[in-house]
């Protein structure tokens, strides 16, 4: 039984990562690997869809902090979408909305990348 899962899909030149389950200090390395392999492929336009994420701790938030600088230096971005209120609260408590584009839904984020 996996408690966390990352799946990937392409939409034009944007990649969408769907994250599902529980993102904590145990599972954060899985997301880290997912993001690292995108960067290794030169893929810097990334949407992370939180629709199926049930739980996040600071280890999960730390993953985004670890990549954002590099990604932005490469004219890319990580946009975060479809957070449930419980998850958004954690981001909000830490002031992440100042630094990250947190959007209502995936399509909106993809459109913004293409505009």
């Amino acid at each position: 039984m996996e408690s966390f899962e990352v799946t990937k899909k392409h939409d034009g030149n944007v990649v969408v990562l769907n994250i599902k389950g529980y993102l904590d200090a145990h599972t954060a390395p899985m997301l880290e690997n997912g993001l690292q392999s995108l960067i290794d492929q030169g893929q810097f336009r990334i949407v992370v869809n939180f629709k199926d994420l049930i739980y996040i701790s600071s280890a999960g938030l730390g993953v985004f902090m670890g990549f954002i600088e590099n990604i932005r230096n490469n004219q890319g971005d990580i946009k975060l979408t479809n957070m449930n209120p419980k998850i958004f609260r954690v981001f909000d408590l830490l002031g992440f909305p100042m630094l990250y584009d947190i959007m209502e839904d995936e399509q909106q984020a993809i459109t913004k990348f293409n505009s």
Partner: protein
Amino acid sequence: MSKDKMKYQLKIPSITDNLELIRMIISTVAEKVGFNPDDVSKIELAVDEACANVIKHAYSKNQLQPIDLVIEIDYKKMSIVVTDHGKGFDFTKMPQTDVKEYLAEMRVGGLGIYLMKALMDEVEFNSHPGMKTQVKMVKYFLKNGELELAKEK
């Protein structure tokens, strides 16, 4: 379950794979004693952060030493004490995390303690490096204002 004085003690191997179990225990107890779902998830996350720190920092990730959890409930609060016997740290020298500054610098890490303080009503550190390190966290059933209101009734 009534809010009688009750005590749960747990010693759990300090591996990240056990964080899920710890969250499940904490949230089950918090729910049973009557916290609303919102408070339950706050307590759950704060305890996860404290235990993740023990795994990551106290025991440097490579030992099966125990995380020691004591949960106490009385009529007005739930308190959780997380103890380790690892390397410890000087929390007085910890920079007060300034979230804006932190974000501007895009630092990695350093968010756990900030979250614990934001989520719980009281957070207290106590570390004797190499001997033992304790984080005590408290959540009240009623916030201060609510308590006054409850008294008036």
